[in-house]
């Protein structure tokens, strides 16, 4: 039977890799969401037309989740089996420069809308009696700390707490929730860092290398699958062994 997975932030970087890794199993169908359609995303959509559907949705919009994503895009009658909360924006600055508006916008995209999506994802799991799996993407910055990432890391820390408690609350219904804590990858998210900054970050890892995007994507795919049926409420670090 086809397994339907909802993935956010599919237009670039890790999101694209996640969709590719999920679609590698031809029993999987992806409902992908992103604000914009990139050239790479368009190619992926064309090459997987029968197993990949896409919706343009801006996650700063907290109000239309049920109507736009669940009623119109996925449809109430479609059983859902997984949700990957990947989309995120980074608000980088030192704490003394913190401003409310960009902070709120980041929290809408990284935390509030994903929490509302989780609400309807769990409802869809319940309606169809599926052993659903939720995977949130967090960041190693939550656990180590980097200059300029306090606000961003706080939003990811919120997701880790949300996931842990979701797992506890819904375990009885065979619904799982886990977090993949990703290290620094060579994606657009870290593009604003200088070579020197990146080098210092990678030196703080056991492997001394950037985290490989594909390795993160494969871990997510594993957590979505029944192979991970006894894993819930966990943070899985895929971070080149950050120390």
């Amino acid at each position, binding site marked *: 039977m086809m397994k339907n997975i909802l993935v956010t932030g599919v237009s670039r970087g890790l999101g694209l890799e996640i969709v590719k890794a999920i679609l590698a199993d031809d029993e999987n169908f992806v409902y992908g969401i992103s604000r914009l359609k990139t050239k790479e995303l368009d190619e992926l959509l064309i090459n997987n037309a029968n197993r990949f559907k896409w919706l343009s949705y801006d996650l700063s919009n907290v109000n239309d989740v049920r109507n736009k994503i669940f009623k119109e895009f996925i449809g*109430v009658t479609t059983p859902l089996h997984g949700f990957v909360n990947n989309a995120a924006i980074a608000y980088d600055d030192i704490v003394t420069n913190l401003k409310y508006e960009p902070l709120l916008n980041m929290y809408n995209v990284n935390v509030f809308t994903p929490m509302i999506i989780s609400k309807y994802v*769990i*409802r*869809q799991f*319940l*309606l169809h*009696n599926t052993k659903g799996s939720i995977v949130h993407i967090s960041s190693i910055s939550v656990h180590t700390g980097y200059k300029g990432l306090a606000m961003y890391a706080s939003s990811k820390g919120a997701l880790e707490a949300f996931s842990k408690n979701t797992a506890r609350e*819904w375990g*009885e*219904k065979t619904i799982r929730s886990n977090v993949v804590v990703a290290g620094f990858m060579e994606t657009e998210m870290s593009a604003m860092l200088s070579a020197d900054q990146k080098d210092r970050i990678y030196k703080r890892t056991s492997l001394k290398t950037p985290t490989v995007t594909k390795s993160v994507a494969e871990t997510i795919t594993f957590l979505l699958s029944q192979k991970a049926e006894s894993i819930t409420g966990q943070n899985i670090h895929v971070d080149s062994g950050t120390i």
Partner: protein
Amino acid sequence: MNKIREILNTVLENRGKPQINSISDSSDLRNDFGLDSLDLAELTVRIEAEYDVDIFQDGIVTTVGEILEKINNKK
């Protein structure tokens, strides 16, 4: 009323709880049928799929009569 009983029995069956034969307006979801918060969540979802009404949208419902009232208000 029969449809509501059918939905209630689906929810009860999914948690391995005993089925119910009769319900009335005054039937209490928690005390008479033994539904807990997770069961009430599933009940909400199943009623929403059938009638497009979120019975917990504005406040708690405790009896079958209150569910029917919310569904009828929508019509």
